[in-house]
């Protein structure tokens, strides 16, 4: 005899597993600090590459003038400026990615909690022999 309630629940869960759940299970397998830390680290690497590319473009844009002025300018001051700009840029980007990934982690945990509750319900149905 088919149990309609059980079939609906199983279909919903299978659909979840196939779509949204796949990502959430991957996220849920991490501890919060591990997941966010890893993602922020990746963001910092991305931001660093982006900064290097933009800085290279900036130098190359006025390459002749830069080469002429490089002897006159205070290199230490210039390096300090670049470093501060880099830190500001990476800091803001890391903060944004921290917020985004914290939100994603808590959303994934919430949705997984619901999924596990459904799993529990399903197991209960089998135990009570309602199939």
């Amino acid at each position, binding site marked *: 005899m088919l149990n309609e309630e059980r079939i609906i629940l199983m279909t919903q869960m299978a659909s979840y597993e196939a779509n949204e759940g796949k990502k959430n299970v991957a996220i849920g397998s991490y501890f919060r600090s591990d997941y966010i830390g890893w993602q922020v680290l990746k963001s910092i690497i991305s931001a660093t*590459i982006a900064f290097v*590319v933009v800085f290279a*473009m900036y130098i190359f*844009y006025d390459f002749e003038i830069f080469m002429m002025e490089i002897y006159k300018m205070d290199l230490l001051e210039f390096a300090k400026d670049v470093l501060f700009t880099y830190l500001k840029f990476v800091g803001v980007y890391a903060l944004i990615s921290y917020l985004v990934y914290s939100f994603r982690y808590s959303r994934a945990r919430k949705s997984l909690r619901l999924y596990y509750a459904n799993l529990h319900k399903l197991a209960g149905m089998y135990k009570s022999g309602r199939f």
Partner: protein
Amino acid sequence: MTTLLVAKQILMAIYSKYEVYITPLLKFLLALVTLLVINSRLGYMESIDKLTVVLIVSLMCSFMPMNFIVVAAAVFTMLHLYSFNLETAVVLGIGFLLMFLLYLRFSPKDTVVIVLLPICFLMKIPYVIPISMGLIGTPASAVSVACGVMVYYMLHYVVQNTTVIASMADEETAAKFKFIIDGLLSNREMVITIAAFGITVILVYIIRRLSMDYAWTIAMTAGAVVNIMVLLVGDLMFDTNVALFGVIVGTIISFLLVMVLQFFVFNVDYSRTEKVQFEDDEYYYYVKAVPKVTVARAEKKVKQINTQRTAKPVPRTRSTHES
């Protein structure tokens, strides 16, 4: 209206029945249009400016994730630009790389906007995208829309200055770099468009989330008006020569297209709104429930009038015979 609703339900039924075929088909069509547009506007590399290549890549896109279309479009663009001029390819490649490193790695769901927006620009109805994204997206969609605008204006600049860039062939690399970067960064029209579209997305999003009747329609109208206003104010301030007539007509057509979207995504009957209040141990709930407009689909039923004869003919008994 009832006919439209019935048509909508039939379309939805067809889609849900043949989703396995329709989704890849739509992806295929989007990839095909995108790559054909890229080839027609930039076609500098002859080896990829062929229908067979486009068809093969589009076919690949049809069963890959949506973001693959964006990647395929970027690769096609880069190859064409590489054939045209190395410096242009490097500058635009860096632009794409920055977008990928800083935004697309968050893998937002609305990446496809980056492909759709340039196509809509060519069709003169780019305004449909920010209003739609405000309705079905999030405020973060403003960044996707901004990326799409940047891609369009970068490519537009290259197409417009093809002869100038080509004639600079003998000049130094640094001078070419400077010319291309200057052109891209000093494009005020791009900045104003990004501002207008960004404001439109956020405004439409905020209004459609409000708990008031006809929030979607009000959001769409406000978005369209604000979009025109910002573009015009930008034009007055920076003298960007925005075609006023084109903006207004484009916005009106976009508005009508978004109305079609609204019909499919959010069609509710405000006259039957119900407001209820209740509480549980932890919360008070103020719930506003707005019913969706639905009509019962007329189903064809074949009613059998002539009943089948199931009774066996009564055999004549001997007694009747005899009598």
